[in-house]
C-alpha cells in the first residue's frame, strides 16, 4: 500500500511539472507568434493545460469540488477561442 501511494505521489509531481512546463512552452509560442492563428492556438492550449492542472490538483487533494471549476474553464476556453477567431474572421464578434 505504501509503495502504491509513493508511486502515485511521484506521478502527481511529474504531472504537475509537465503541465507547468507546457504552460511555459505555449507562452513562448504566444509571444513569438508570428501569425494571429498561432496566438489563438497558444491561448487555447494554455486554457487546456490550466484545465489539466486543476484536474490534477483535484486528484492530489482528493476532493470533488474541482469538477465544477474545470467544467467552467472548459466552457470559457471554448467560447473565448471561438470569439477571438470570429473577431479576426469578420472584424466583429456578434454581427
Amino acid at each position, binding site marked *: 500500500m505504501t509503495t502504491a501511494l509513493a*508511486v502515485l505521489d511521484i506521478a502527481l509531481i511529474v504531472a504537475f511539472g509537465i503541465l507547468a512546463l*507546457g504552460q511555459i512552452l505555449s507562452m513562448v509560442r504566444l509571444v513569438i507568434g508570428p501569425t494571429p492563428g498561432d496566438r*489563438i492556438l497558444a491561448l*487555447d492550449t494554455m486554457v*487546456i493545460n490550466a484545465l489539466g492542472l486543476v*484536474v490534477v490538483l483535484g486528484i492530489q487533494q482528493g476532493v470533488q469540488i474541482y469538477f465544477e471549476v474545470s467544467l467552467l474553464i472548459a466552457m470559457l476556453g471554448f467560447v473565448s477561442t471561438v470569439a477571438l477567431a470570429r473577431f479576426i474572421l469578420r472584424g466583429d464578434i456578434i454581427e
Partner: protein
Amino acid sequence: MSAEIIGNYATAIFLLIGSGFALVGVIGLLKFNDPMTRLHAPTKVGTVGIGMLLLASIVHSVVLGETSIHETLIMAFLFVTAPISANFIAKVNIHKRNCETPPTPPRDDTWSTLNSPDEEPLDPT
C-alpha cells in the same frame, strides 16, 4: 494485491500517459514550422491528454470510495468542442493567407472564409 493498490497504480499510469501527451502536443506547438502544421499537435492535448487525466480522476474517486463519473461530462464537452475550435483556427489561417490558398470554387466567386465583410457591396441588388 488488493483493489485499492491496483487503483492507485492505474491512477499513476493514467496521469503519466496524460501528461506525456500534453508534453508532446506542446513541443509540437513550439517546434513545427508552418501555421497549419502547428494546428495539428495541440489537439491531442485536448482529447487524449486531458481525457487520460480525467480518467485518472475517475479511477482515483473509485479508490477513495466516493465514486463519481461526472468527469465524463467534461470529456464529452472537450471531444465535441475540440474540432470546432480547430476548424475556426484553420479558417483564421486561410483568411489571413498564412497557408496555401484553396482553389476557387467552381460556381461561386470566392470562399466565404476569404471574403471579408468590408469587401462586400452594401446593397447587392
